């Protein structure tokens, strides 16, 4: 394995007033300096601290040792010295092209299986700020699990996408959902375009359009299917899709199903995007050099593995200049960013009409399930007839639709209480507090200071399993992520801050993280910590000299 230390560099990005015009962006060395700070109303601070060299070397060494043991175990399994508990081909198919020999399957068999108890933990309560887990043990090193019969109660939930705390089983939203179930039942028994279009769906769509500030919107039953089934309806052969390096699997799948040409630009790098746009317009389609039928830029609002926020003002400026279309996936940012909770467009203070296709999901901030697409009326009417999801997928279940309607009205303040505004404020306070405290403790935290997704770097493969288990011992449920969701040496633990977390819960979680960080030696950050300001005393000591 070649030593490839990701050269991301520590890039503290302040609103640096830089006079370089947008068109001379090609060939700049520091790609994250805000070149057009006049487009941003407040400083855009993101940081991705570089991996320390010793940690990178030790991580590669750890993966090397585990790979050797993986080969040893595969050898023992192949020669039947050890019982084989993984999937393998049938006897008759042994001479066919092998199905399970690639690296992904090797990794799953030999590395993922050993620490599998950190994932798929069964939850037996509402995944709110605290939850109950079913205790399960494995006696054969994670190949099979059994439930002990006990329940681990009141585990602080730092992994659920519950940004505004709407995942609850009591309150106005739950009562309204119960009424909807009593009126409509639970299943719809048809797809949207056949017999599954209920009046509650129409009400939901009008409400979503009003919430986003667009002309019209359409709601789908599944967020993943919204992306993967609608991008093929929007683009086809002869179109160009410019997608960010770290886009979600649903966007990548939708782009591939569409059959368009896909070009990838570096993550959140506006110079790379501009270069691709200029090349596309100048050279046209690959062999014939005809102009592209459509150029679609696909970005996300918050990238959940990095915690970074898209540079939307610059993307919109580029889109207008080069006449491309913009598809914005606000899965994590809707409801979580912005003073009114209207997502990343609200956060930057832009006009929703600038974004051609605003997509989002109801899973994260609204406590429901499903996705939506918002935009001009012609676009949505076209999608109603041509989207695979509308034609074939079952439409959204009525209690889920009612939950979205009540939570959205609460966020907009139309239910008569200030609950929505309180939750939005609580979320942004919790985010700032949590991020600041983790940074002060010395962990490497990626991402933007305002994003409620907090990735904390772990790097070494053994620490992935150890972190998850140690946090569970201290009654905190966390999500740890490794390859293939992240680059191989950049495994991380991802915290999702919620408005339902009280200050005490966050303090408990921070204390436990501090303890586990010391135990596992996770405090890799090499930045100087800002000294606590002494206020008037500091000024006096300066004056005396």
């Amino acid at each position: 394995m070649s030593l490839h230390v990701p050269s991301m560099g520590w890039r503290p990005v302040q609103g640096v007033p830089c006079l370089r015009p947008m068109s001379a962006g090609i060939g700049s060395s520091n790609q994250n300096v805000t070149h057009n700070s006049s487009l941003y109303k407040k400083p855009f601070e993101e940081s991705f601290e570089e991996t320390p060299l010793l940690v990178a070397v030790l991580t590669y060494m750890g993966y090397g040792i585990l790979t050797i043991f993986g080969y040893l175990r595969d050898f023992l399994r192949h020669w039947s010295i050890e019982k084989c508990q993984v999937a393998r081909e049938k006897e008759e198919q042994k001479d066919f092209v092998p199905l399970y020999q690639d690296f992904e399957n090797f990794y799953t068999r030999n590395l993922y299986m050993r620490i599998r108890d950190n994932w798929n933990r069964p939850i037996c309560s509402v995944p709110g700020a605290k939850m109950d887990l079913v205790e399960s043990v494995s006696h054969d090193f994670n190949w099979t699990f059994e439930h002990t019969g006990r329940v681990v109660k009141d585990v602080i939930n730092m992994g659920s996408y519950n940004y505004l705390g709407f995942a609850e089983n009591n309150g106005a939203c739950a009562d309204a959902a119960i009424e909807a179930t009593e009126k409509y039942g639970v299943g719809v028994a048809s797809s949207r375009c056949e017999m599954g279009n209920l009046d509650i769906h129409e009400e939901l769509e009008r409400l979503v359009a009003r919430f986003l500030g667009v002309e019209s919107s359409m709601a789908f039953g599944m967020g993943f299917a919204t992306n993967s089934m609608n991008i093929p309806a929007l683009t086809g052969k002869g179109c160009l899709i410019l997608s960010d390096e770290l886009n979600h699997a649903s966007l990548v799948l939708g782009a591939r199903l569409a059959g368009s040409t896909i070009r990838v630009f570096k993550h959140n790098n506006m110079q790379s995007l501009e270069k691709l746009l200029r090349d596309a317009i100048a050279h046209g389609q690959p062999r014939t050099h005809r102009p592209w039928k459509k150029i679609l830029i696909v970005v996300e609002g918050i990238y959940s593995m990095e915690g970074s926020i898209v540079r939307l003002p610059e993307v919109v400026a580029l889109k207008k200049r080069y006449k491309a279309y913009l598809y914005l996936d606000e899965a994590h940012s809707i409801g979580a960013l912005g003073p009114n909770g209207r997502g990343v467009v609200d956060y930057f203070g832009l006009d929703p009409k600038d974004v051609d296709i605003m997509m989002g999901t109801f899973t994260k901030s609204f406590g429901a399930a499903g996705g939506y697409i918002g935009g001009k009326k012609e676009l949505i009417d076209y999608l109603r007839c041509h989207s695979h999801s509308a034609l074939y997928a079952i439409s959204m279940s009525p209690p889920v639709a009612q939950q979205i309607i009540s939570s959205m009205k609460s966020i907009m303040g139309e239910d008569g209480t200030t609950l929505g505004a309180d939750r939005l404020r609580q979320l942004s306070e919790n985010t700032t507090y949590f991020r600041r405290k983790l940074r002060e403790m010395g962990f490497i935290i990626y991402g933007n200071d305002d994003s409620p997704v907090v990735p904390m770097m772990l790097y070494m493969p053994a620490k992935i399993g150890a972190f998850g288990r140690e946090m569970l011992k201290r009654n905190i449920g966390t999500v740890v992520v490794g390859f293939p969701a992240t680059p191989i040496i950049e495994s991380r633990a991802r915290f999702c801050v919620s408005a339902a977390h009280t200050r005490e819960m966050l303090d408990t979680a921070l204390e436990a993280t501090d303890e586990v960080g010391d135990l596992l030696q996770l405090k890799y950050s090499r930045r100087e910590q800002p000294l606590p300001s002494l206020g008037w005393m500091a000024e006096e000591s300066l004056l005396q000299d």
Partner: protein
Amino acid sequence: MNFKSFREYLSWLYYQYLLITGIYVLEPWEKSIFSSILFSAIGMVIYTSYVFVPIHVRLALEFFSGIFGGQSESTMALIN
């Protein structure tokens, strides 16, 4: 971190060894195989250096002093 006893500190060091080499995730027999190979290799390195390093250092010093002062010594030997 406060360690109540030296034993606790040693067990924390063992834990760090398991985490950094990555063998924390392996089954006990795999851990024993790896540790025995590693410590026998380290033991062999220590033994070899104990036996051979003084000899090599002495020979190297003789070689280098031979270059700088060796000519006068050999003429003395011829005369004698």
